[in-house]
């Protein structure tokens, strides 16, 4: 049971990350490979505020989200100059830079040693120390992320995003300042990633740079493409399937090391097969 709860919490964290990323990649057509950097910013901000300043989790979470949003605004300003594959490459570059900063700003992040001993969240005297209560908190986070994403997707703002994806110059002709739209959605995506980061840091109670590499960003891309671009339920489906998959492999009896590699191989193969036969993913509404 405890084990199932653990898998469910991880699936929730990835669902939040995927929902944020899908707004950027699926709805707006910006192929971002930088989601893990905002995930990391949220996780580190929460970890540092909790361990060094003993701040309340929910306050730390808000500050973490704000920090990630500010970084996303700055990075998004640069990225908005690029399109398609160059966008992907430049965002990947930012992910590497942020990761390098986690690794080397040792007086802030403790570098490769990581930050241990992060407390579980508390709210009005209630401690989310048990995994079941943490699962409930994670489900609430997924619900919030889903509602935010759905609100964005269904609003006129969301329709403008889809129009940017289909034909940005045309939208500009109609007088839309597409830069503002692209920045706004990038910031929202990053804020959701930071929310997931705060959950991750307090769930594992430890953060180190290795959780926020470009491989993580690529994995997240696989999650949303598998589930379906521009489909929010697809993102949750993608997160759940790609988190549960390696657990099944472990059950079948593969050793952990091999199971981890099998997971890589399977999600890599899924990306290839999807690109070949279903570039919009399982439930997707948009083809890359």
């Amino acid at each position, binding site marked *: 049971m405890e084990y199932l709860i653990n898998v469910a919490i991880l699936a929730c964290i990835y669902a939040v990350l995927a929902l944020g990323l899908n707004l950027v990649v699926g709805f707006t057509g910006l192929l971002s490979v930088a989601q893990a950097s905002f995930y990391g910013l949220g996780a580190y901000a929460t970890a540092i505020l909790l361990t060094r300043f003993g701040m309340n989790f929910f306050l730390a979470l808000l500050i973490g989200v704000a920090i990630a949003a500010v970084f996303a605004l700055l990075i998004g300003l640069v990225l908005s*100059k690029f399109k398609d594959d160059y966008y992907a490459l430049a965002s990947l570059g*930012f992910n590497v830079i942020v990761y*390098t900063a986690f690794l080397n700003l040792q007086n802030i992040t403790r570098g490769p040693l990581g930050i241990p001993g992060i407390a579980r969240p508390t709210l009005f005297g209630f401690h989310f120390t048990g995994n079941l209560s943490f699962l409930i908190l994670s489900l609430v986070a997924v619900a919030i992320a889903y509602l935010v994403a759905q609100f964005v997707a269904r609003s006129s703002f969301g329709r403008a995003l889809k129009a940017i994806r289909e034909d940005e110059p045309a939208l500009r002709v109609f007088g839309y300042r597409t830069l503002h739209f692209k920045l706004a959605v990038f910031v929202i995506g990053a804020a959701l990633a930071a929310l997931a980061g705060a959950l991750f840091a307090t769930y594992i109670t430890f953060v180190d740079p290795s959780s926020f590499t470009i491989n993580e960003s*690529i994995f997240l891309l696989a999650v949303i493409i598998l589930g379906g671009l521009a489909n929010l339920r697809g993102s949750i489906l993608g997160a759940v399937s790609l988190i549960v998959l390696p657990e099944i492999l472990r059950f079948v009896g593969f050793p952990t090391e091999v199971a981890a590699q099998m*997971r890589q*191989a399977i999600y890599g193969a899924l990306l290839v097969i999807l*690109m*070949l036969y279903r570039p919009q993913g399982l439930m997707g509404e948009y083809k*890359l």
Partner: protein
Amino acid sequence: MSIVPQLVANSIIAGAMYTLIALGFTLTFATAKFFNLAHGAFATVGGYITYSLLVQAGLSPWIAIPVGIVAAGAVAFIVHHTVFAPLRKRHSSNMVLLVASLGAYTVLQAVIAMIWTSEFKSLPLKTAERSIEFLGGIITRTQLFALIAALLIAAALIIFLKFTRAGRAITAIGDDEEVARVVGINTNRMMALVFVIGGVVAGVSGIFTGYDTGIEPGVGMPLLLKGVIAAIIGGVGNIYGAVLGAFLLAVVENFGIWKIAAEWKDAIAFGLLILFLLFRPRGILQK
């Protein structure tokens, strides 16, 4: 003693390593017009096959190295045949090809890790490594060979593209694939040839990496990313550009870490890339 000569020597050696990986990547881009991230895995394949033949089978480097190179070319051919050729036939977008290449890379890396484990492996030298004085700095004999190989391969590619029938056909496809097909060039076959050449050069790069610093299954991506940066800042799709970009990147990195800690090397490299993309997106030698 001044540190500058050693920094110059280090820059030249790093430039040679980056050239090796950038050449194949840029050639693929020049013809197929997409970022092939699976290219990094071709290098890893070359390194590991050579490792197995040298260490596990105890063969001589004269056999192990060529077989490793051919294996890298063969894997490139297979990936092209099963993934990229069908996608190109369907006129998939660049992004689809990019994501598919990322998928292919992930599969290859995982398979390599399953066969050879994630442990770090070095290709063994037959005789002890020798240091050579080079422009006032110290380099190893392996590094000197890498420099010579990089320059020779770049020259060979330039001659091949300019003066042979196949090379000119490949250039023509890069200029306009439709027209090339209309004038009777077998574009599918030429494209396969491009991937095989790219894979072979990547294999060479992987083997030198194995001798110089050692390899692990994930080494292909960081190696390739340096090649990608080199290719783009030099002018992607341009062989001269790849060489120029590789050496510029190496100089900026090595002199950058003179003032900043060495751990920031990757951040410096990507910072350079982003600066170029912002202010000179087509690189030094723009078409």
